[in-house]
């Protein structure tokens, strides 16, 4: 709480840009310091870790994937390939077009629109990729994102 309250002081002393940055850095370092001092080492851990140092080699158990038949394995591979394609290509395309359209609508100077898009589109890409990895309906979500991206492109082209 005190760290957060220090933000105005950082800002007064170093300006808003440095003040906010220093505050975030200080917040992380303070929190880690509190974690370290509030979780003191337990004495019996010494023995515990000493005992654990000799690693027992476990026998390799067949995991679930190995138990599955070849056709399921093949479909998993296709699913992974599809997810990768959607994550990189479709999310990349959609985020670029959606962000460009968004800032065309909300920022007035073209140079500003481009600058904001350049900084925001990795964030939008990240958000869309979270959606892609979360969804159980990969094909439907990917098609939807592609349609949204294409529609955004069409709108941009029709606006300019």
């Amino acid at each position, binding site marked *: 709480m005190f760290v957060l309250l220090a933000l105005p002081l950082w800002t007064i002393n*170093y*300006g808003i*840009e*440095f003040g906010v*940055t*220093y505050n*975030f*850095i200080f*917040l*992380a*370092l303070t*929190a*880690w310091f509190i*974690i*370290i001092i*509030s*979780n003191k*080492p*337990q004495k019996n*851990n*010494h023995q515990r*870790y*000493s005992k*654990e*140092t*000799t*690693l027992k080699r*476990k026998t*390799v158990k067949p*995991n679930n994937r190995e138990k599955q038949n070849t056709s399921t394995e093949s479909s998993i591979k296709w699913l992974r390939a599809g997810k*990768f394609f959607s994550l*990189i290509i479709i999310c*990349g395309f959609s985020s*670029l*077009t959606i962000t*460009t359209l968004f800032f065309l609508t909300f920022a007035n*100077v*073209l*140079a*500003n*629109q*481009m*600058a*904001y*898009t*350049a*900084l925001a*589109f*990795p*964030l939008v*890409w*990240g*958000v869309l*990729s*979270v959606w892609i*990895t*979360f969804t159980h309906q990969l094909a439907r979500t990917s098609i939807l994102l592609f349609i949204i991206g294409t529609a955004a492109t069409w709108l*941009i*082209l029709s606006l*300019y």
Partner: protein
Amino acid sequence: MQVTTNKNFFKGMLTGHSSVGLMVGALMYVICLTGTIAVFFPEFERWQQADVPEFQHYTANTITTAIEQYQLKTAKSPESLYVVLPTDSVPRMHVSDGELEWWLQADGKLSSVVNEGWTHMLTELHANLHLPKTFGLLIVSIFGVMLVHLCISGVLSHSRIFKDAFRLRLTKERQQQIDLHNRLSVWALPFHFMIAITGAFFGLVSLLVLFAAPIFYDNDRQAMVEDVYGSDPNVVSAQVKPVNIAVALNNLALQAPKATAIYIVIQKISTENQFIEIAATLPGRLIYSEMYRFDANGNYINHQGLSDGITGRQLLYSVYRIHFGHFGGLLVKIAFVLLGLSLTVISVTGINIWLKKREQQDWINHAWCGIVWGLPIALVASACCSILLNISAIVVLVIIQAATIAACLYWQNINKGTLYLQRICACLLLALVIGHISIFYSDIYNAFYLWVNVTLVAIAIVMFNLRNDSHNSSAGICLNPRL
């Protein structure tokens, strides 16, 4: 019903988080570790060539002599000629046309050739993984996007984010890894977001240019760049003569008294269109610099508007300093190293959690041990070979990294592998320091080199005791991929 829905949500997020984390795992570790070390790249550049003349004060004559000396040496008129001025952290001057580069003596005469060596290898590894430049930059930027994904999905998959905010359970090894992963990532989240977005920006901006230039700028990419960053002035002078640096520096002091010049560029030198640009930092600003323009006689023309132009331009020009922590001095750099190191530990513990979850041990565990502890060895060995023996740093890095992975696969014992690799790394660090002192023995009493060498020895001591720590304390240094 509500509980089940929440549980499914967290589970789904965690699955996505794990799958992307595994996809980017090893390369993310490489990017994070090299980025952490690269915070100090100007210092390493200085340290690796310790015999270069150092000075803080320069005059306009120094710069004029440097320009004359460069022209005499090369007989070239490059598009842009840079004279980089001394700063507090790097009290040296050098002249460069982008290809050829020399350090300067205090009187402006050319000294030794700038040897990019190991530091260049390190920064290139971080920026583009030594792939073809634009492609590599794009790939690393996509890793930045994936880091954004990991930040978001990591927070959303954390069902007890507030309850466990200060919890670090050290009793069970897997729990220790999970707690360390979560505590480090949650509290440094703003930093990780900032690093991810600014890192992604460097390469992805080229995708935006490809997409937007045909639509908004008639496919003129240069016009787009100039619109965002500001354009060069049109200068036509009657006669071609040497540029007047002294008047330009005086006029800079009049125009921007608080500005500190960091480098000077002579654009289109020895042509009718030549002009001077002075890049200068401004107090309290995150922007890399403002560019003040002067004609060949030193008369003020304008400035680029990086400090007071459109907001977008100011934002974009602040990205570099905020990504590398090059603002606010040494303390900020140390904080950036700690925060960068936390990101490195997070990327390692993430994979460790997955390895532990598999409940089996195979070649992946051994290879991962080789990657994690092999990269520091490869970096130190490449520094040794590059600085002490003048051997290509990247070749050594690749060979040593491959060798450490092969050794771990051969040993088939993660405890042994970790212990050996940590100790080899410590020994190599000591060898590097001893080698550096023996080569640059005349400069060893310079406070800067002394501090760097003492720090390297301290890191070697920590490395040597790291494994013992994990035996004897409950902290268990979680970079340890022992499972």
